């Protein structure tokens, strides 16, 4: 089966990027190297092709109430011009997908979902929303680029010729570029100051090349996207989030403030396992699927993600641990070639990120 291509796939190939299938798409894993791209994003600005992700527009009379019953997001406190992170849950409260919802007006929203889940999410939403509410898959005509890093705001202001300093974390704005609509939100998946940018697919290549003309910007692949998000303590669907675990188990219980009677609400607070952030000394990585045990050898869980953390100089991991052992502080990870002592740590793993930085006008 051949993978889908983004408007930028040919650009990546021409630049010699290492390409690999991801969620049905042919995506760039790295250009120069994961470590260089990771550090560049932490210090300057990285540009990511995220066109594989899905976007749905939901609008029409009753959209607010209907969407509030379909997802965990508290839309009652979401103002126009703001977006919010939350979950599409199954009836048991397990996570079908994590997604960001943008509010344009009283009954007008955009939902941004993971590529691997997009088709299923669309079917689920069609099923949950009444026929009177319009649900449109705008993924094909919508390109998504992420610009992330402490210098991202300067780069984007320069490219657009407008100030973006009044945009708060999780705020968004609709502007135009080259005569086309451009939506930008102060959000991202790296722990750094940055923006997620949505524009028509036929403008993606020109805008990508414009941003890369700025010497502060390098293209960054999905390899560094993964190390950046892990250091920031952000979950990856299919690893830290899945249909068999609730948001509360993943440490997201406190954000479930919606008073609507949404699908999965009861199960969303259920806790059978707990997602633990772990610190492992040294450079040998724990990896997805490794067994988590107590020092006495009792098996108590499983690693969901693990990597050498380039900005920290040691290994970090997330692991599910059975709730009965969630208070323990010391563990052992049975990695493929060694047993690695692991201790509970706090989130984010990397605390010096600029994502929430207040900008001076």
């Amino acid at each position, binding site marked *: 089966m051949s993978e889908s291509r983004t408007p930028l796939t040919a650009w990546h190939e021409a630049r010699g990027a*290492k390409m690999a299938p991801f969620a049905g798409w042919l995506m760039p*894993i*790295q250009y120069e*190297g*994961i*470590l260089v791209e990771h550090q560049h994003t932490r210090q300057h600005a990285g540009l990511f092709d995220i066109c594989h992700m899905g976007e749905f527009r939901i609008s029409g009379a009753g959209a607010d109430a209907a969407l509030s019953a379909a997802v965990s997001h508290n839309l009652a406190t979401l103002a126009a011009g703001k977006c919010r992170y939350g979950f599409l849950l199954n009836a048991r409260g397990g996570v079908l997908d994590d997604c960001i919802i943008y509010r344009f007006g009283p009954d007008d929203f955009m939902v941004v979902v993971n590529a691997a889940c997009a088709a299923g999410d669309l079917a689920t939403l069609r099923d949950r929303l009444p026929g009177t509410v319009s649900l449109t898959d705008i993924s094909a005509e919508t390109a998504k680029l992420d610009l992330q890093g402490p210098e991202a705001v300067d780069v984007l202001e320069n490219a657009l010729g407008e100030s973006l300093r009044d945009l708060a974390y999780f705020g968004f704005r609709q502007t135009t570029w080259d005569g086309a609509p451009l939506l930008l939100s102060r959000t991202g998946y790296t722990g750094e100051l940055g923006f997620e940018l949505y524009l028509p697919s036929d403008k993606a290549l020109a805008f990508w090349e414009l941003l890369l003309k700025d010497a502060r910007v390098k293209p960054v692949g999905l*390899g560094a996207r993964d*190390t950046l998000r892990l250091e920031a303590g952000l979950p990856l669907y299919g690893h830290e989030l899945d249909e068999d675990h609730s948001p509360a188990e993943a440490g997201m219980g406190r954000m479930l403030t919606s008073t609507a009677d949404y699908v999965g609400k009861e199960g969303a607070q259920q806790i059978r396992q707990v997602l633990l952030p772990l610190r492992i000394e*040294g*450079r*040998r*990585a724990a*990896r997805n699927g490794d067994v988590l045990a107590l020092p006495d050898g009792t098996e108590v869980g499983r690693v969901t993600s693990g*990597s*050498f953390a380039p900005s920290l100089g040691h290994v970090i991991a997330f692991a599910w641990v059975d709730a009965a052992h969630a208070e323990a502080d010391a563990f052992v990870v049975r990695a*493929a*070639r*060694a047993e690695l002592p692991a201790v509970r740590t706090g989130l984010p793993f990397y605390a010096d990120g600029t994502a929430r930085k207040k900008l001076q006008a």
Partner: protein
Amino acid sequence: MSMNPADLLYSKSHEWAKIEGDVATVGITHFAQEALGDITYVELPQAGDSVAAEKEFGSVESVKAASDLISPVNGTVLEVNTALEGTPELCNSAPYTEGWLIKVKLAAQPEELLDAAAYEAFCATESH
């Protein structure tokens, strides 16, 4: 132009050996480091350990993967590259020089290793 020095011998598991008398210096090839990507950890034996041709003698981890190191020679480890403990990325930046892995006192001269031209021909088949 070839990335692979002509004075080295190569294995099909992408290690190289530089034979000087009865001592071999061993490392991973340019092809191997490129396939692995950024190397973040190298596990090596200790001086005095035995290594055997076509047998594992350590492992190497990159951000995305981990794989065994396979010895191209038989013998006893004389020295390991301790610089790799803190800077394993030398295996990426200088796989044939500063990124060497171990020096081995040979028990016998190696057999069945490839010269640079034969190794390059082999890599050409591997990358398709």
